[in-house]
């Protein structure tokens, strides 16, 4: 019953957003959808980089797997469904499911060998996998190779994007409260201690990594079906770094923080466009890099730390809602 309530709430919110977007000029609705897709990516990466204390640098690769799988499934297999709008949406959802399965599977293949090792190997291995995926896609001529993949039906709606984003946020939040979530948090705090307590660290890390890549795949599918054209270079190392920056700025472990950071970082460059026209150089990445270094030195927890938005605005709420799992925790974060 509780679950049904949440689904209805999410559907309601997503419909409201769709209504608002319909009224806005197309420029804003485009920005909104791109920001939401970035937010889904940030939430997915937060599961690995924030909640389980690992460090992945290849989220764009999983996004690429999702984008190309969804696009191929929809264009090559489901074209018979494209007769009506309902059929279009049904085909989109089917291809998003395939995208999640494909990128989740790739995530499993990558995660299993690398997650047994210490965190920094994962960073390099995921970076490498991102590159391998890009090179492989460049060499598949069926999906356009370097020219890119044209003619994907443009069926992503603000409603669907918002619904998936909200569902991801809610799912992550509830996951943190579950026993698996607690195990993950335990291994983030101290892997050896968690292992000594009987937590199967590798299994939980792989689980989180697979879930994270599957969600990134869905985001890629949405991206492909929004722009209706994808190109391997949209999923390069810089894209992965951008997602990492969103998670780091928002606060590693704070789901709402990374959503907020994703929106700010997507909208800010647009707002700063006049400045760029004035200076004629693209200082965006320089500023990002400085932000990243400055943040690590001055406020390593990120803007929100591990707190969620709803924990910062203290309202009167029932006791069971503010479980201690993701809230206050001793500040000492040193690892062995």
């Amino acid at each position: 019953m509780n679950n049904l309530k949440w689904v209805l709430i999410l559907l309601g919110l997503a419909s409201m957003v769709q209504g608002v977007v319909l009224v806005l000029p197309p420029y804003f609705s485009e920005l909104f959808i791109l920001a939401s897709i970035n937010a889904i990516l940030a939430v997915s990466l937060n599961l690995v980089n924030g909640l389980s204390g690992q460090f992945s640098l290849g989220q764009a690769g999983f996004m690429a797997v999702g984008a190309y799988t969804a696009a191929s499934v929809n264009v090559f297999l489901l074209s018979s469904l494209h007769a009506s709008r309902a059929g279009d949406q049904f085909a989109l959802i089917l291809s998003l499911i395939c995208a999640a399965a494909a990128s989740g599977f790739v995530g499993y293949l990558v995660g299993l060998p690398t997650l047994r090792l210490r965190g920094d190997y994962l960073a390099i291995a995921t970076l490498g996998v991102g590159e391998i995926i890009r090179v492989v896609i460049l060499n598949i001529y069926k999906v356009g190779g370097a020219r890119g993949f044209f003619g994907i039906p443009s069926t992503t709606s603000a409603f669907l994007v918002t619904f998936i984003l909200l569902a991801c946020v809610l799912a992550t939040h509830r996951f943190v409260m579950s026993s698996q979530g607690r195990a993950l948090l335990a291994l983030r705090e101290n892997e050896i201690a968690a292992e000594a307590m009987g937590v199967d660290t590798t299994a939980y890390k792989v689980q989180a990594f697979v879930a994270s890549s599957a969600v990134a795949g869905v985001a890629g599918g949405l991206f492909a079906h929004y722009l209706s054209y994808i190109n391997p270079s949209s999923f390069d190392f810089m894209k992965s770094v951008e997602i990492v920056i969103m998670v780091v700025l928002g606060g590693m472990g704070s789901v709402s923080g990374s959503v907020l950071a994703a929106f700010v970082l997507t909208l800010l460059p647009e707002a700063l466009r006049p400045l760029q026209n004035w200076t004629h150089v693209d200082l965006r990445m320089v500023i990002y890099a400085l932000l990243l270094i400055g943040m690590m030195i001055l406020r390593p927890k990120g803007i929100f730390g591990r707190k969620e938005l709803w924990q910062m605005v203290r309202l009167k709420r029932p006791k069971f809602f503010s479980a201690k799992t993701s809230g206050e925790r001793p500040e000492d974060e040193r690892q062995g």
Partner: protein
Amino acid sequence: MEGFWQLLLNGTALGSIYALIALGYTMVYGILSLINFAHGDLVMVGAYAGLFASLALGAADHPSIGKFLLVLLIAMAASSLFGLAIERFAYRPLRNVPRLNLLITAVGVSLLLENLGQVIFGATPRVFPDILPPFTVFQSGQIAVTNQQLTVFGTALFLMVVLEWIVQKTQLGRAMRAVSHSHETASLVGIPTDRIIAITFAMGSALAAAAGILIGISYPRVDPLMGVMIGMKAFVAAVLGGIGSIRGAVVGGFLMGITESMVVGYGSSTYRDAIAFIILILILLFKPAGLFGKYQPEKV
């Protein structure tokens, strides 16, 4: 068969460059347990420093061995200063924080160097001046050895021997080895750990700059993003040899260079960048400690 020997030769020259860069990764990893993502970009810094130094010296107009060595030294000095600055302002404030934060900072420093490079030098590649005009030293059938290949190999080998001597035979090297075992114990016996770490960074950066110059003379173009891919491959070479081990880095570098040369020669050149990461994942699967490394389980 002659094709094979030529590929082996090219691979050895390329491998000596990888080995020089891998040494920097392995030294910093040995002493700080940090993957210094910015190390590849110090190769770029060194290459640009060498480019400007040779333009200023007019080394391309009247090439000579002396000018080549001078350019090499200037680039190594410039890159060392960068390495020292990075260590002092980005890594030292983070000595006692979780390693993840240090890693993110390293990614940040790398991004900063790449993008500052693009803003300052422009994104278009530049031609590296011809400070050592190529000629064939030795020819047998189809196989040709050029003076550039010999210079690359010779310089790299010389620097590796010097490094090995410093680390194994001098007071400084002994201090470095002590710090890499344990910062706390080393400082208890009076070793200035911060200074030793800074010197390690400077040495690693100097080797990276030398690699940058050698890349400049053998593939005469430099661009602000040149360090990214070559840095990644050198890192894989360091992991292949066993990260933290100096001999491992050298062997890994040569293996990496030869493998890449063979893949390009016999396979497809589009996969030349992917092969490094395939090797990486294979090592992580089967022998995570690398060829020369010892597997050390984490202790409490």
